[in-house]
């Protein structure tokens, strides 16, 4: 398993030590999954939504949005307006 690739996809960057530890666990866990190969799943529909799951739709009606104060409790807003992040494109 190319751990680095999945770290990138998951926006993680593990230390070498952590990589070593997790790498072994992951290999064991993924090997454990092999047991599923025994099961014949031809013509079996995957189960994603358990019984009774029925989509309902809301009316196109406005509901109260959050006030800025509650946003500011969790992050300072630039100019009182914007979330500020380091530039998106790296060099």
């Amino acid at each position, binding site marked *: 398993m190319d751990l680095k690739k999945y770290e990138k996809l998951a926006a993680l960057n593990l230390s070498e030590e952590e990589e070593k530890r997790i790498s072994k666990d992951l290999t064991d866990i993924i090997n454990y999954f092999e047991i599923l190969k025994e099961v014949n799943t031809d013509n079996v529909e995957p189960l994603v939504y358990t019984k009774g799951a029925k*989509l309902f739709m809301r009316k196109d009606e406005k509901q109260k949005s*959050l006030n800025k104060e509650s946003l500011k409790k969790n992050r300072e807003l630039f100019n009182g307006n914007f979330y500020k992040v380091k530039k998106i494109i790296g060099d």
Partner: protein
Amino acid sequence: MEYKPTIGLEIHVQLATKTKIFCGCSTEFGAEPNTNVCPVCLGLPGALPVLNEKVVEYGTKLGLALNMHINKTSTFYRKNYFYPDLPKGYQITQYSIPIASEGFLEVKTSKSKKKIRILRGHIEEDSGKSIHTGDITESEYSYIDFNRSGVPLMEIVTYPDIETAEEAYEFLVLLRKTVRYLGVSSGDMEKGALRCDVNISVSKGETLGTKVEIKNLNSFRSVRRALEFEINRQIETLKKGGKIVQETRHLDERTGETKPMRTKEELNDYRYFPEPDLPPLILTDEYIEKIKETIPELPNEKEERFVKEYGISEDYAHEITASIEVAEYFEEAAKLTGKPKEVSNYLMVNIMKFINENGKNIKEITFGAKEFKELLDLIDSKTISKNIAKSVLEESLSSGKTPSQIVEEKGLKQITDTGEIEKVIDEVIKENPKPVSQYLNGKKQVMGFLIGQIMKKTKGKANPKIASKILIEKLNALK
């Protein structure tokens, strides 16, 4: 053998709902940043999406109008990637089964009519907006506004059936007309309500060339320019023995050139999987049928009918049906006056000019079907000439007065009294001996000059037919 371009479009249509796709926040454009946000569209932990029924209605409507098949069961998926304007780290979209699939639009170009097939139409949520100060590559920070996060979109993906920049342009124009006819989107490209990415390759023969994507085209003109440039660039590159690089480019609006986007090489693996927070969307035949009934006559149908039913030119029919309001205006006036050709003429020449120059909407002007009838009746009864009619129309448009009011107030009634006209003609003959003798010597062209003199003296009110008949009689009598 010639190089042939192959073009496909991916168009995001913003659906004109009052609230977002999965929460009750307003979709209003231009609100104070980060005020139309809630736990759902801000991606707070624990929040869950709930589907807006209007999005489904509009999506179904647009799908049907684009001749698509509506899937009775469609599913939502998560598309996973990290981007600061994507608050959940995934976008809820449709993947394996979209709400609509397999349709087409028939576009007209200067050369031909052509069916552009549509692969799919799926509903999804928009991301927030990143604002960059200065140049995208130079600024140190980006600023994010999540007001747009969760605004409903329908993405329309075409087959690569398009072969010219003009076809792409016409497809977009027709799509915009269609969404406006339906009322499902404002279709305003400059407000981002319509956004277009294009895929383009060129090749000789059957094997397709290397595909280049051009992203973030934000006007109809940009789409056309970008494609014209890119087609040329690819052909020239290949002719010189060069190679096309598979990449994403953008249009430099200043130079009209496409340039590679300087993106960091990112892994592209969206890890789509079914959205467990949203069970499948199930639509009944009755529902689809009900939506079908609400679809109005669409631009192409209306255009054809106008040509057939009213005998107006194809060009005019095309232009008039560009906007449903103009089309409705025309039809009402054409019906009331019984003179569709005249209506189309005045509409396309004088009224549209007034509207464009004054930045008005056809709905805002007071000159309606009734006024149209009045104006055309005045011409019919020879009360005014066609020339005068134009200025009456212009005056009516700007002042809001009715045509007969204007004719009355300004004394524009045409002179049909032959006695009065004869008197003026006698004066003109007397005052212009040189042109008169030229005429008598066979130089018939001076007629126009002499009529002009008559019109000047009568301030244009002399009936031109009567005036010219009497003038010829009087001149001939001088021979």
